[in-house]
């Protein structure tokens, strides 16, 4: 899988896709959506779709894309290679969301939470397939958040398509399991080849599974927390695990909008200056006031 | 010049973590 775009800049998102099999533009298709890396505090989250004609679902099943959770990493890699070989009837697309994109979305001034980001990414990939001319008839999605709202939103967005949002969809529908394999292969590769722009000290990549409750992961986070800069961008700053370490180990940085000082409070304080004092302490001339300049009383 | 107050005066690995963008 060619993730070179991500390796060049791993602070945004990158989309990958297979060629669209000609048959998928002619016959009604089933399309599966799944993600990999939703839980970890490290590395990207990957959304994937996989689609094939309804008439070839049995062949897809024959590829043994059983429930991807039961497969080892090497089995997934092999299966992914098989799917690429049988590319004449199977198509896929991925959207790799970097930890930086996840963090900045969740921590932005206007909150864009993980569920919304997930839903929009999934819908974006389905739209991509439609834009490529794939005749999508059915969509199967693994639940993210409340299945009903998710089902409703997707059904509204794609009225002509039969949408099914279900828990454990990756063990019920082969197209979802295939999507899950694509997502996991991409995430594993992205993590394995992660380029630390921060030039990690002693390139210590012993971070375990990346899941918050993994002691190895927590130990790695504590080793790499930096008081002023926090963590390398490989880390999802918006994760509770990361935030609690920052609160303990890092400096409190104050932004101008983070301290919504009560304006009237300021007025109140000057009310205490008796008129005389204020007029006696001559303010700097407006030339300086308008430029934020004052005499330096001390260094 | 940063648009935030980092309330310390100390060494920091600026070169490793910070790339000024024009």
């Amino acid at each position: 899988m060619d993730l070179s775009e991500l390796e060049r800049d791993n602070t945004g998102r990158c989309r990958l896709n297979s060629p669209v099999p000609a048959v998928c533009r002619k016959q009604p298709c089933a399309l599966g959506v799944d993600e990999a890396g939703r839980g970890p505090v490290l590395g990207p989250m990957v959304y994937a779709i996989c689609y094939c004609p309804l008439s070839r679902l049995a062949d897809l099943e024959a590829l043994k894309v059983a429930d991807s959770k039961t497969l080892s990493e090497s089995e997934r890699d092999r299966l992914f290679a098989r799917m690429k070989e049988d590319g004449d009837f199977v198509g896929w697309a991925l959207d790799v969301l970097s930890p930086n994109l996840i963090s900045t979305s969740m921590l932005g001034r206007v909150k864009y939470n993980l569920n919304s980001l997930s839903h929009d990414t999934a819908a974006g990939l389905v739209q991509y397939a439609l834009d490529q001319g794939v005749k999508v008839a059915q969509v199967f999605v693994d639940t993210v958040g409340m299945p009903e709202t998710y089902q409703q939103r997707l059904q509204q967005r794609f009225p002509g398509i039969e949408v099914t949002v279900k828990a454990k969809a990756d063990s019920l529908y082969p197209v979802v399991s295939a999507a899950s394999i694509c997502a996991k292969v991409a995430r594993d590769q992205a993590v394995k080849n992660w380029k630390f722009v921060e030039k990690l000290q002693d390139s210590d990549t012993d971070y375990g599974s990346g899941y918050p409750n993994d002691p190895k992961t927590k130990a790695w986070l504590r080793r790499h927390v930096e008081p002023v800069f926090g963590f390398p961008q490989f880390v999802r700053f918006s994760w509770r695990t990361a935030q609690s370490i920052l609160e303990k180990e890092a400096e409190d940085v104050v932004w101008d909008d983070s301290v919504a000082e009560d304006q009237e409070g300021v007025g109140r304080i000057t009310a205490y200056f008796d008129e005389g004092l204020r007029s006696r302490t001559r303010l700097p001339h407006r030339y300086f006031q308008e430029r934020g300049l004052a005499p330096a009383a001390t260094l | 010049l940063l648009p935030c107050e980092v309330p310390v005066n100390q060494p920091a690995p600026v070169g490793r973590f910070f790339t000024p963008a024009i």
Partner: protein
Amino acid sequence: ARQHVFLLPEYLKDASKKMKSGLMFIKLVNPCSGEGAIYLFNICLQQLFEIKVFKEKHHSWFINQSVQSGGLLHFATPMDPLFLLLHYLIKAGKEGKFQPLDQVVVDDKFPNCILLLKLPELEKLLRHVTEERVNPEIDKKKYYKFSKEKTLKWLEKKVNQTVAALKTNNVNVGARVQSTAFFSGDQDSSGKEEDYIRYAHGLISDYISKELSDDLSKY
């Protein structure tokens, strides 16, 4: 250690190289408020600079491989030392008699004021603001007394120079704007002469006492 970020005229760079103590930060009186203020004294060129600081909330610096809180930006601007000497001459002038300079420029709050006595061409400077006497018997020493009308004439020149500078630098002297962000390049530069003089008087008044500022305004 605390670090400071300064904007200085380029030529000062080698001043600090030539002599280790080429540049000194000293505390002297602020002639407007009477409080203390930091100045930069260039020993080599015998030149005085005032220090202004740009201060805005929630700023800090990355300086090479370090972080510095506060984010203050200091400016060093050449300043006419006569504004400082004037502060002492006016104080001494109240006694109404002629005195030698080294008895006038003394200040136990800001002892470094004696550095002002080392400035070149001091006598030429003083002629703008004082009457002087030479006592023939005693060692040709010069005695000075503050002269208000000479000073007002000198300040008037300063105001006119400032008006010219305000015009060439397109400084907006008209109605007060909320922030420099609203300064439009093409503000009505036809700003009335009156506004320029009032603005220039206000600027100069940041360097003289309130009393002298009022006299100057009447003058």
